[in-house]
Structures are given as C-alpha cells and as structure tokens.
C-alpha cells in the first residue's frame, strides 16, 4: 500500500535519480566530479537571499536565488584558472568554501532577524527533506528530467566528442563552447531541483555515485549514460520505499546509501571489472596454464619412454604444479592415476600434442609479427588455433616486414 503522498515522493526521487545519473556521467567523463559538490554548496546563499528578498519560502523565489548563485559559482570556477594562476582544483575548493560560508552566515542572519517564524524550515535545505516533497517540486523535477533525457538523446554524439576529444570537435567545426555551456546549465538546474529532496550536502553524492557505478558495467558512452540513469532512478525508488515503509530514517541519506550499495555490489560482481570476476578469470587462467604444463611434461616423459610419472615430480616437484590443476586434469579425463604414478590417457596425449603444436605455431607467429599485443600473448590452444586460422589470410604486418 502506497499512500498518494509517497507516490509523489517516489516520482520525484526516481526522476531526480535519473536526471542526476545522466548529468553526473558527463562530469565523471570530464573528470570534474568535485564540481558538483562546489555548485551544490554555492546554492545556499542564493536560497537565503531568495527568501530574504521574497519574504517567503516560495518555491520559485528560493529556486531562482539558488540557480543564480550556482551559475555565479560555475562561472567563477571555470574562469578563475584562466584569469589567474589558481589551479582548477583549488578554484573549485575555494568557491565551495566561500559560497557555503556565506550561505551559513546569511542563514543565521535570516533566522535571527528575518520575518519571524517563516524562516524556520530553511535549514532543511542543508540535508533535504524528500519525505515532504510537494507536488509542484515533483512536477518540476519530472519536467527537467524529460528535457535532460531528450537533450542527451539528441546531442549524444556532440556531448561525447566534447567529453572525449574537444580539440577534434573544434577542428571539425562542432561548437564545443555551446555544448560546454549547455552541460554547465543542465548541471546547475539539476542541482537546484535536487535541493529540497537531498539537500546541499548530499546532492554531489547523487550526481557522482551512479556514473561511477555504471562504469563497472560498460565500455561504451551511450550505455554508460543509460546505466547511470537507471542506477540513479533505482536508488531513488529503493531509498524512498525503504525509508518510508521500513526504516524511520530521512529519505535523502537513505537514497544515497542505496546508490552506494549499488556501487559496492557492482564493484564486487560486475563481470569484467568486478573484483570477483577478475579473480575468477585469474584463477582459471592460472589453472589452465598449469594444466598445459602438466600435460606437456607428461608427454615429454612419454616420448622419453616413461609412461608413468611419479605424482611428487609434478606436485611440488620439478614442475611445482598446484594439486588443484592436477585434479582438474584427472577430472577432464586427460590424466589417469595408477597408485602413486600418473599417466596420460589417449585423450590426454591428443590434447598435449595439440597444445604443443599450437604453442609452436604461436611463437613462430609472434616472432614474425611486427608488434606484440599484450592481450594476446598468453592464450590457450583453442584461442591460438582460432586466431591463426583467421589471421593467416591477412597478417599485414608480417608481409610488409618481410619485404
């Protein structure tokens, strides 16, 4: 059972997560993640000023104030390193501190001397209050999310070029300046609309964590955007449900914790870049390498007239192989055990011969290839056979060099 109020919050937080995930990807790829934090903090003086000028906590007044100081912060962060000798990271950190300090000072002034009790809720913007999200807030977030999503779809290739190689973009006449401006604007708007929900302090986390999570799952730009948006939306939904149904905790922090959980899970289980996957591949590789060595060793002995080889000579003996590799050989039916001795089965002999010839062909090919590809040097016989059959037709480097 979901209350209508919760439904509004759900819509707001999921579209907010979607929006932050998209915009955050661009920051991550530009290596400007810290910028999100600086801009989020620079909204605070704007919020308070908006309140002081309008005399009420009207959504538009606070929003306009926040957007104004954020944009000012964005301009300063990008111009300071050009106009002075301050480095970009120092500029970002300084702007964060200066604006946030100003904001806090203004806030205490407003709370002491402002129009009485009306100023009471202002400090909610520090940590956000998603559970109290209004209909108009959710609506604004949804509209912004739709616009951001549409722009990403329309401009994905221009945005990708501006992130990856803006010199190339400029050189081919794409207006990189327009794109940069657009990205800055989208970032500022996204930060401003996320303030009521997650607050000044946590907004950056919602912008930075989803793309970092998505990076574990893909090597392609468009996929990164999509996954990051999905992670953001999922964190929004799960955080809202968890905090409203189960835990009696503020929604904003729970959303951030949910996205952090997704990050941690991805770090561990993502197939190519995850810790477990990498570990498993490493173990498998090692085991196959050892299996190959065992088979070749037994085969050499067989040729020398020793059909049976003592187990100790393989395990921690002259080969120093792992016993799990040997077990794997036996399980695969390549080796059979006779008391303390081992010998190759007919299947094992065939496999060893195949492996020896593949290795020989492979070293020959490597010797003649112009450059060695690090990803290709350590291969199984199956990979070698597949590669060499395909390559024997072209091998451009080889032919060119032999002439």
């Amino acid at each position, binding site marked *: 059972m979901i209350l209508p109020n919760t439904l509004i919050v759900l819509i707001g937080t999921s579209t907010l997560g979607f929006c932050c995930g998209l915009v955050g990807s661009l920051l991550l790829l530009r290596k400007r993640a810290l910028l999100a934090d600086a801009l989020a903090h620079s909204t605070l003086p704007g919020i308070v000023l908006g309140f002081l000028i309008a005399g009420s906590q009207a959504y538009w007044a606070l929003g306009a104030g926040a957007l104004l100081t954020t944009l000012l912060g964005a301009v300063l962060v990008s111009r300071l390193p050009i106009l002075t000798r301050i480095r970009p990271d120092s500029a970002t950190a300084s702007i964060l501190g200066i604006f946030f300090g100003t904001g806090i000072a203004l806030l205490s002034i407003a709370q002491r001397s402002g129009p009485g009790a009306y100023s009471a809720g202002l400090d909610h913007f520090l940590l956000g209050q998603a559970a109290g999200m209004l209909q108009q807030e959710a609506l604004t977030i949804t509209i912004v999310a739709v616009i951001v999503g549409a722009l990403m779809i329309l401009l994905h290739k221009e945005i990708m*070029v501006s992130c990856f190689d803006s010199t190339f973009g400029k050189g081919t006449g794409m207006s990189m300046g327009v794109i940069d401006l657009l990205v800055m604007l989208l970032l500022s708007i996204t930060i401003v609309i996320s303030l009521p929900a997650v607050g000044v302090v946590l907004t950056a986390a919602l912008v930075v964590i989803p793309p970092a999570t998505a990076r574990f799952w893909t090597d392609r730009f468009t996929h990164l955007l999509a996954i990051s948006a999905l992670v953001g939306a999922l964190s929004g939904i799960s955080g809202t449900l968890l905090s409203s149904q189960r835990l009696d905790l503020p929604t904003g922090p729970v959303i951030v914790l949910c996205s952090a959980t997704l990050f941690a899970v991805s770090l561990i289980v993502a197939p190519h870049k995850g810790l477990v996957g990498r570990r498993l591949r490493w173990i498998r590789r090692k085991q196959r390498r050892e299996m190959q060595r065992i088979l070749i060793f037994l085969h050499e002995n067989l040729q020398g007239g020793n059909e049976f080889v003592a187990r100790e000579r393989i395990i921690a003996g002259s080969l120093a192989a792992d016993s799990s590799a040997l077990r794997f050989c036996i399980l695969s039916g390549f080796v059979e055990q006779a008391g303390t001795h081992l010998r190759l089965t007919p299947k094992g002999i065939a496999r060893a011969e195949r492996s020896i010839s593949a290795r020989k062909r492979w070293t020959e090919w490597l010797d003649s290839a112009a*450059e060695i590809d690090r990803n290709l040097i350590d291969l199984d016989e199956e990979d070698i056979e597949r590669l060499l059959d395909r390559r024997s037709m072209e091998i451009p480097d080889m032919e060119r060099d032999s002439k």
Partner: protein
Amino acid sequence: MNQTAIEIHDLTMAYREKPVLWDIDVEIPKGSLCAVVGPNGAGKSTLLSCILGTHKPANGWIKVFDVPSEQSDELIGFVPQRESVDWDFPIQVLDVVMMGTYRRLGWFRWPGKAQRDWALECLAAVGMADYRSRQIGELSGGQQQRVFIARALAQDAKIILMDEPFAGVDAATEDTIRSVLADLKNDERTVVIVHHDLQTIEDYFDHVLLLNLRLVAAGPTESTFTRENLLRTYGGQLTLLDEAAEAVRRIRSGRSMGKAGGK
C-alpha cells in the same frame, strides 16, 4: 603538377600577448610527408592547432587548397598527442572511428549502418578491423595511433595532422606507423607531423619545416635539412646541437661522397 595543400601567410599567434609563433610564411605541397621540427616551446603544436582551426591567429591567414581555412569545407584529420587522450574513456575502437563521420552527419542525428560500414572500411584500411570492439585503452601504442588515423580516413581528410606519433614507441611500432604513413602518401594525402627525432627525418619525410617561434626554413628535406639550418633552429642548445651534428653527419655519409668535404 604540384598543388599547394596548406598555405600559411604572415601568421602570428600569441597567448596572452606573448607571441608563440611569429610571422610564419610557408607553403606545404599536396601529397607531401612534412615534418615540423624545432626545440621545445618552438610553437610546433600551436602551428598544428592553427591549421586545424582550433586557435585563431592574431594576424595572418591560412588557406587550405586555395580556400581560406574558415570558409573551407575540407575536413582536416587530427591525431592527438598520446598523453592528451583519456585512454580510460568508455569508448570502443569503432566508436572512435565513427567520430569521423559526425560532421557530415550534422547535429542531432544518430549514426546508422552506412556510417558503421564506412568506419569499418576505414578501420580495415589500417589493419585494425579485428579490434573494433576493444576499449581503446587495451590497445598497444601503435594500434592506438592507427585507430586515430582511421578516424582521419573516416573524415575523408585530405590533410592529416599528427602530434608526435613516434614519441615513446618501440622500434616495431615505429615501423608499423611508418608503413601506414607510406599508405597515406600513396593515397595523395598530405601529412604534417610534429617530430622530435632528428636522426630519422631524412628517412621518413620528404618535406621539412624548421620552426623556432619564427620559420627558419621549409622545403624538400634534401635541400632544407642542412647543418646550417639546424644550427639556426636549435641555436645555442648544446646537446641538441650535438644531436643535430650527428644527424647531419649521417646524412652526409649516406649521400654521395663528393659532398662530404663541403661545409
């Protein structure tokens, strides 16, 4: 018929009032393999960005195939310096090459099958079709250079600029890049390369442009890459001077013996 590919006239370029290039006046003929040579800070990379159009010169103009570069529709290929590329970027080899089709595709439109096929063809031309779905950071140095050359081919660029493709690559990779360059030359493309290794200039390039803030000399390697010009380019920088002397000695001994005594 020796058409001019790039014509630079009275070009002066400055960063914050400090001139980086001063009064450059040079023509690069079509179909040449041209090396841009000079000490560090001589403005070599800046010259490339001026030709590419990413930097506006303070004075002077550049013409590409007799059309002022701002009005030219001619796409110029650019192979960036290796350190300036983010090799961790989530992008696969074929996606990089597809970037070459973006300008002709125009704003808002997504690349389709035609662009994909064309990009694959360009990738095959540099012998990298097998690597199309690799993330770019997984490639070796020479393969990375070839991917960016394929991007220039996808632009159908008649002019290709390369910023130190030979920096920090091993001998085998250097060979590979060289053979790709030879292919580009056979295609009548004009290639301008910032190059540091004076020893190899004579072997690799048929045209040379000696630069040190001002243009010291430009022309066919045979007549331009001389001891006098190198001394004027590198000035009093002693170690470089030795290197230059060594390079020149090699040239002299490699050529006809009759010239060897001449100073």
